[in-house]
């Protein structure tokens, strides 16, 4: 028998309660998506970045359908409050992400904000942006033990394969 109210349990609910209400939440996310399309790298609270990521990626999927598509144009018109970014979305971002099947954004954790609230922050960026990279992939140097052993093995294999 049900002892608890369904409204008070939130198991499996995916959408966070941001802002003052549902409409306010959408406006907040819309501002963030516009900022991301304009600046291509923004530093925001982690929860907002997480919410916004899905919306941004779906917007780019709509943009990939093309300029002439009525639904795509209506979506872009709603989600981008600054109308010059609609041109950027269809002409720059859709072209850039055409070969990619999905995941056009990268979200990384930042040290907590310096304010009194010490909020959990994240930086969210579109892949392929012109700015310096946040993570530099480092390859191990040749001088590590494992690499030296592998190099020796390769040379032995070549010496045996030659005659």
């Amino acid at each position, binding site marked *: 028998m049900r002892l608890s109210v369904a409204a008070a349990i939130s198991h499996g609910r995916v959408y966070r309660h941001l802002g003052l209400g549902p409409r306010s939440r959408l406006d907040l996310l819309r501002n963030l998506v516009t900022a991301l399309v304009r600046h291509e790298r923004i530093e925001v609270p982690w929860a907002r970045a997480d919410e916004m990521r899905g919306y941004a990626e779906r917007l780019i999927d709509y943009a990939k359908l093309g300029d002439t598509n009525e639904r795509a144009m209506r979506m872009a018109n709603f989600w981008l409050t600054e109308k010059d970014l609609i041109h950027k979305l269809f002409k*720059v971002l859709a072209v850039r992400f055409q070969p990619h099947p999905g995941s056009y954004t990268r979200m990384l954790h*930042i040290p907590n904000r310096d304010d009194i609230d010490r909020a959990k922050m994240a930086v969210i960026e579109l892949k392929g942006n*012109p*700015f*310096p*990279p946040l993570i*530099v992939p480092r390859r191990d140097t040749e001088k590590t033990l494992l690499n030296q052993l592998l190099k020796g093995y390769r040379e032995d294999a070549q010496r045996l394969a030659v005659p």
Partner: protein
Amino acid sequence: ALVMLFSPLPRLRSLLQRCWGQLEHGLLLSFSRGPSPPWGPALAVQAPALLPEPVSVTTESNEVPSLFDSILWMAAPKKRRTIEVNRCRRRNPSKLIKVKRNIDVCPECGNLKQKHVLCGYCYAKVKAETRLIRIEIGKKEGGPFNAPTVETVVLYDGEKPTEKEEGKRIIERARKRPSWFAQD
């Protein structure tokens, strides 16, 4: 005294009339014996139907009983908590500050960082450079709402655009290329 009774059933009416007749008969007989009837009211007083309660009781019931007579009402500790019991409560693992074991050294700059978080120093470095690039972009665009419809590429001192950067907008930065920003 005559009492008129309107009962719905005629049999009940006749029964009541007979009873009342018997009573009157008995009353007449007793009256002939003595002066005072045995069951008359001794004293008839004019008073309202409901007697009001004494004033003090009503005022008492509305107010909270004073602390003077409510020894059973307020909670109070019975015994002093010993230092052993206090120590158990204060030093219980749930109240102690947890030790963080996810702190590492950043391989680039040597500062401390949490494993799942970007290094603060390296991020600040990249943030400063991005800010300068954005100033240059702002100078190139001129006003607000002038987002370009072509890609952007950043070139440092002494670098020429290659054929890969054909139709892109070039942003010049007047410094040497930093080691952590490799040209793709």
